């Protein structure tokens, strides 16, 4: 199937996922267009992480379909490398490679996985370091960086693969309040540059500001969704209202 930019870049249809007996996703559907930023919010354990991990095949699904630029993810013969070239992911715990410097962390995947030229990759990696405002930290090891700095290296590391879509799973949840802002700024700039983003976040103010569309999950289902304005101000479902009243 040939994908064209007028079709959804990510198309999730009726996805079911269970860990053993525990049903975590019970038929989730959503579409993300190119350049769109969507935020997924919802109570703990509602399956937000599970859902976005399914998009880059870190979790497999039992039923349903996930198309990423027309590539079916729910396929036993899935070309994972092809998929992961298109989809970048940033985690809550940064997950940098602790034995590599910031610059090496960023260069590693392009050089090892894509077999790109090392010196050209280094030029690009240094640009990315500048983009996430970490000049001077090129040769620091992750253990020598603050949480916020590590997370920005992790974002740069994903961007080095030149992905079409970025997944963010509560990337500020492990940070000190004063460093949350610097990471959110980086993501906002990325969104403004037209990157397609799927974010799981608890930062409601941020979601309201950057998202084109908000999805609220509870109990493995999407309960409600809409553009930020309608979603935050005119939520219809009582579960959404209760969640928002607790968190705002």
């Amino acid at each position: 199937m040939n994908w064209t930019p007028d079709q959804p870049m990510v198309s999730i249809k009726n996805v079911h996922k269970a860990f053993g007996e525990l049903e975590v996703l019970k038929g989730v559907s959503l579409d993300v267009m190119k350049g769109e930023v969507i935020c997924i919010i919802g109570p703990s354990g509602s399956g937000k992480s599970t859902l976005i991990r399914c998009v880059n095949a870190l979790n497999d699904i039992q039923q349903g379909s996930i198309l990423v630029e027309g590539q079916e993810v729910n396929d036993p013969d899935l070309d994972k490398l092809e998929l992961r070239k298109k989809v970048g992911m940033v985690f809550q715990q940064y997950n940098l490679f602790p034995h590599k410097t910031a610059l090496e962390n960023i260069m590693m995947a392009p050089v090892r996985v894509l077999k790109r030229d090392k010196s050209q990759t280094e030029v690009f990696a240094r640009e990315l370091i500048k983009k996430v405002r970490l000049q001077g930290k090129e040769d620091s090891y992750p253990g020598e960086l603050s949480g916020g700095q590590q997370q920005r290296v992790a974002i740069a590391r994903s961007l080095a693969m030149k992905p079409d879509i970025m997944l963010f799973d509560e990337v500020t949840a492990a940070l000190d309040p004063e460093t949350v802002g610097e990471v959110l700024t980086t993501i906002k700039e990325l969104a403004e540059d037209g990157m397609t983003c799927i974010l799981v976040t608890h930062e409601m103010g941020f979601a309201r500001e950057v998202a084109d569309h908000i999805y609220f999950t509870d109990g493995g289902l999407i309960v409600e969704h809409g553009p930020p304005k309608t979603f935050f101000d005119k939520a219809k479902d009582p579960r959404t209202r209760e969640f928002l009243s607790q968190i705002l």
Partner: protein
Amino acid sequence: MELFFEWFRVLYDTTGINLPFLYDSYDRGRMLDGFLTTIKLSIVCLICSVIIGIVGAWLQASAFTWTRRFVNGYIQLFRNTPPLVQLYFFYFAVGALLPKVETDWGGQAPMFGSFAWAVISLSFFAGAFNVEIFRSGIEAVPKSTVEAAESLGFSRLQIYRDITLPLAFRVCLPALNNNLVNLVKTTTLAYAIAVPEMLYEANQIWSDNVNVTEMMFFLLIAYFVLVGVLVWGMNSWERNMKIPGYG
């Protein structure tokens, strides 16, 4: 140099302390051969046992039940039997079962000599411990770090080589060093199948010269220095591998 060696002949003549491997060129040759054989045996076994450890730990994480069982069986067998018995088993039992090969002059010779059997036996012995050591190191690598590599498109082999092993290595280096030091000490067992290593050559010398006491002193000091150099090397390697701000 000659003067230095001659001094030990004088020492023998005046005090009776007999160190022929210093003043006698023939014994000196034997001792040097023994020393070099010990070094060679140690280095080859070190390398082979580390390779066995790395490959074994990789196979132990295999998706196939039988591969895992095979590796576990191997570990149990070699951990729970004495290394000397293993050595005899390889040399006398397995060696006898293998076909003989033609030699250049038309005779029959065993496929492997005693040195080769010592390498095989000792490598598998130390390798069994290395598998366990590497596995514990690999288990200490966070799953989330591996997932990050996966999400960047790394294949399973690339992850093992570029992420898991380098990190696991740092975790298990102290245990690995310990095992490798043990391995070097265990090479003396090769004496039992007549590999001409240091202990064996020393035995030849004390049989000819009846200077058991002196040779024992010498052996103890020689191994102490040899293993000491290894330990020192390993420790500085451990320090070099340390990552700033980690562990």
